[in-house]
């Protein structure tokens, strides 16, 4: 069992990140246009990247930083691909 000692400040930070993910997911579901959903996905991936960096700190392993970098690169490529497809289609 891996010990996760985050403390009171870490608990508040996790709660804030969870609220942020819920709000972003609400816009992802509700968004009236495709561009709204793409923006919501972009913000959610940035929040997830920050959460992965924080997870690297909690688990005390630098490998998770590499995972965060690859995740950010792939999400950026995905957002650019969707936006270009949206622009070409119109």
């Amino acid at each position, binding site marked *: 069992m891996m010990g996760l000692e985050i*403390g009171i*400040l*870490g608990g*508040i*930070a*996790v709660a*804030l*990140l969870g*609220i*942020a*993910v*819920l*709000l*972003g997911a*609400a*816009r992802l579901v509700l968004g009236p*246009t*495709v*561009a*709204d959903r*793409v*923006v*919501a996905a*972009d*913000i959610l991936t*940035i*929040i997830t*990247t*920050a959460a992965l*960096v*924080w997870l*690297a*700190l909690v688990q005390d392993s*630098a490998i998770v*930083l*590499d995972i*965060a*970098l690859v995740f*950010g*690169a792939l999400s*950026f490529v995905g*957002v*650019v691909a969707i*936006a*270009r497809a*949206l*622009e070409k*289609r*119109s």
Partner: protein
Amino acid sequence: MTVIGDIFLLVGAVFLCLAALGMVRMPDVFNRIQTGTKGSTLGALSVLIGVFFHHPDWWAKLVVLAVFVLVTSPVGSSIIARAALATGLRPWHQAEDEETV
């Protein structure tokens, strides 16, 4: 050092939460791009600085991540805004809108 890192982590989480709140509250795609990109960039950079105060020996990967966030976030928002403009969306004006928030 650890206390400073905790404060930076908390500030970063607050700004990420505010960016997501702006995504819900703002009336328009362009406003959402504005608030979301700026708030999330500042929040992610603050989280990176906080992790740096906890683990100064991870500075190389943290600098790479910070430069990556600083480069890709404006480029992504610009591309989304151009695509939204190309699909026919126009910026929101308060005078045209009957039900103001």
